[in-house]
């Protein structure tokens, strides 16, 4: 269905464009030249083309969204009575099996005749609905175009209509950003609220034990599930702290050196080299942390007589810190550049060395911006996933020891949601609760950071 409908719609709109434009040309000739038309012929063409493709595409997309549920409900109505008496979950199973049989995904040997019949029914329904809607879509493409074609005359304000429509589409595109945010908030919030129905919010936020394994059966022992997120927060903070204590000094010093000391030549090649660090996918860092850095740290620790876990927080934190260096350095670089040259000249003119100028003049002047960039980097570190998934552990111990394995919010989200789970158990819903916290926290950091940076830029502009 999809393979021929889209080209069909396109073809019809192209035809509509041609006919619209040629009718406008004809009218222009009949009424004494192009100047008598309100708009250019191409605008009339666009007008007819748009009135054919917009309704058709709307119906096409709308059908794509409701198609599955409509067909399923049509088929369900005519299922035999004994199948209909099944409970909701079993009915879903039966319907899924029917679809599998119908679409030829795999025909199992022990398909019951009832399901076979239902599958045939499904194929039939699919067939006639597809034909019906396909015909409807073609009509939707042709009829409005014909009406628009009839409406073309020399006074029709085609350009205004076309431009108005394009403008509405532009507005629609730019609201997608808002819709995304809303989508994130609602999808995460609803599931998180469901989670907080079964686990009280205070237990989640202040509980000291995290073991999300819940009992599958009522009589199972020993896995009641504990959802105290404090160990996870501690792990996240620990790793982020290690990362920042690598990234802030190295990033800041690199930025200061590049903007204040380095020759233009060094600057032009060292800056892009540092940016490479930001372009490497995080999964590569994860591989590196897990297979190179972690064993290295473990061996060093053993040589020094320390107990080091093979998935230590230190390894993940160090590598994450290196990943964040370019964020700190390029943002600080911008900020330092925004400090007016007159401040530098004044300080140097009074006899201060460069270092003194940097320490007493440039850094204080750039401080808000630097803080902003550090906050952005912290939000990066907290939200970073792959490095910790691959190099940090899963055990939610409440510890500040960087040589032990800790777990983070993102690691827990991944482990709780990867694989097949029921979507009602607190275990999966906990991932959304963690996601909500992560989102709110990083949003807060970003918001503050962006405000600070923006304020600061305005100050010197």
């Amino acid at each position, binding site marked *: 269905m999809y393979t021929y409908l889209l080209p069909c719609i396109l073809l019809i709109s192209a035809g509509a464009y041609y006919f619209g434009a040629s009718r406008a040309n004809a009218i222009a000739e009949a009424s004494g030249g192009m100047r008598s038309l309100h708009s250019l012929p191409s605008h009339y063409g666009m007008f007819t083309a748009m009135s054919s493709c917009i309704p058709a595409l709307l119906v096409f997309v709308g059908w794509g969204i409701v198609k599955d549920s409509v067909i399923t409900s049509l088929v369900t109505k005519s299922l035999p009575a004994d199948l209909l008496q099944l409970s909701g979950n079993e009915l879903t199973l039966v319907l899924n099996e029917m679809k599998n049989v119908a679409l030829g995904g795999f025909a199992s040997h022990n398909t019951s005749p009832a399901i076979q019949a239902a599958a045939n029914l499904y194929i039939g329904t699919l067939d006639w609905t597809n034909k019906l809607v396909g015909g409807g879509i073609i009509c939707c493409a042709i009829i409005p175009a014909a009406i628009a074609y009839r409406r073309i005359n020399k006074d029709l304000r085609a350009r205004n209509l076309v431009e108005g429509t394009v403008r509405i589409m532009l507005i629609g595109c*730019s609201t997608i950003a808002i819709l995304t945010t809303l989508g994130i908030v609602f999808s995460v919030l609803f599931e998180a609220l469901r989670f907080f129905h079964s686990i009280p919010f205070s237990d989640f936020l202040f509980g000291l034990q995290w073991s999300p394994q819940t009992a599958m059966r009522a009589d199972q022992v020993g896995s009641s599930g504990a959802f105290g997120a404090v160990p996870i927060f501690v792990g996240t903070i620990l790793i982020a702290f290690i990362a920042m204590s690598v990234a802030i000094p190295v990033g800041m010093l690199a930025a200061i050196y590049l903007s204040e000391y380095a020759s233009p030549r060094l600057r032009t090649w060292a800056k892009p080299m540092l940016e490479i660090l930001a372009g490497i996918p995080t999964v590569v860092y994860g591989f590196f942390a897990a297979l190179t850095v972690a064993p290295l740290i473990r061996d060093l620790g053993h040589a020094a007589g320390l107990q080091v876990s093979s998935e230590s927080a230190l390894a993940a934190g160090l590598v994450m810190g290196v990943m964040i260096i370019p964020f700190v350095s390029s943002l600080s670089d911008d900020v330092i550049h925004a400090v007016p040259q007159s401040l530098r000249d004044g300080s140097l003119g009074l006899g201060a060395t460069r270092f003194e100028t940097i320490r007493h003049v440039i850094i204080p002047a750039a401080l808000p911006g630097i803080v902003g960039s550090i906050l952005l980097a912290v939000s990066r570190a907290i939200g970073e996933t792959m490095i910790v998934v691959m190099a940090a552990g899963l055990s939610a111990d409440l510890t500040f020891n960087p040589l032990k394995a800790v777990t983070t919010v993102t690691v827990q989200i991944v482990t709780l*949601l990867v694989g097949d789970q029921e979507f009602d158990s607190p275990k999966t819903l906990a991932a959304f609760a963690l996601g909500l916290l992560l989102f709110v926290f990083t949003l807060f950091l970003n918001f503050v950071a962006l405000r600070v940076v923006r304020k600061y830029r305005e100050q010197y502009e």
Partner: protein
Amino acid sequence: MKNIENTGTSLLHPTRQLKRRYRAEKWFQRMGLLAIVLALSFIAFLFFTIFSDGYTAFTQTYIELDVHFAPEVFSQEKLARANYPGLVKGSMRSLFPGVTSRREKKQLYSLISPSAAYRLQELVEADPKIIGTTKKVWVLADDDVDMLMKGKIDRKQDESARRIRDNQLTWIDKLIADGRLEKRFNWTFFTSGDSREPELAGILGAVKGSFLTLLITLSLSFPIGVASAVYLEEFAPENKWTDLIEININNLAAVPSIIFGLLGLAIFINFWGLPRSTPVVGGLVLTLMTLPTIIIAGRASLKSVPPSIREAALGVGASKMQTVTHHVLPLALPGMLTGTIIGMAQALGETAPLLMIGMVAFIVDIPGGITDPSAVLPVQIFLWADSPERAFTEKTAAAIMILLIFLVAMNSFAVFLRKKFEIKW
């Protein structure tokens, strides 16, 4: 007072205080240089590790067998029913007639990859006339043999600690001496999908999945991104609503990528019922993720078009829309394309949101369309990095090399575009 006295004694010889200040200056400068050297040497170390881990994956060990396609094996009607594993085992036995005990035989057979039987089947099906003849056939060796050939299994290690036993070692040495063991270019790595057997695992499925995912991302995010950038920069009135959109876009650019995965899981999969693990869902999620990047780059590039162009177009009677589509947009397009390519490079390397929407499934088949389950390159790397087999480490590193090559190519193309079409007003 003291300062003045000190400097008064000699202007030509720096005082102790001045020396101290200069020392601090030097020390600070060195620290800065050290920071840069540190960061750059980390890059070098990273690339070196990955290259030295991964380059061996581009060759694979093959074993030469003398296979006798005995007619009695093919007595059955269908060629596919014949006992191909038996053929492989038989030719291994004929190479080492001394091996008799059951345990030793098992060890002997384990030198050959399970794919050898399929290779023989392919040969027979391609040319049934070879039945009854004896042919020399190169088949894949097991991944442990491969690791040994590449020096990644230490021969001197204690027998119990290594995956190749002593008697297997002597057989391998004999094979090497006979010239029956050879490392060849690893075409399998580029032409097959994932596998549980390291010697059969390839990246084609993941590369194709990545390609399909990026195709969807590009075809959605580029038009939408350009449209929103144009609206916000050229048409939007200055009001609360526009401000809200702007703050939103800036914040979305910094939201952790895993959150987009949660969104995709809750809305695209659970609510809309789109199929899991497919490029179409991956593409949608990555579209939402890359849109802010593209919009921000697009706005910057529209901003750099001087107002005189707009004023001239409006002055000769073009409408606002005509001004934008005929003059401003073509001038801003190279910059927008650069931003888009950088966004696509980001999307290509992204893993976390795709884990959320189930792209971690073990998928052997090479995806044919956007609704087939598929892996993508970074997720394949993640999966292989998690595999316990030693041989997967080199595959992981090799897949990372391929990924980095794609990323470097995309970024250099972006830089090239910027250099080529950059207009200095």
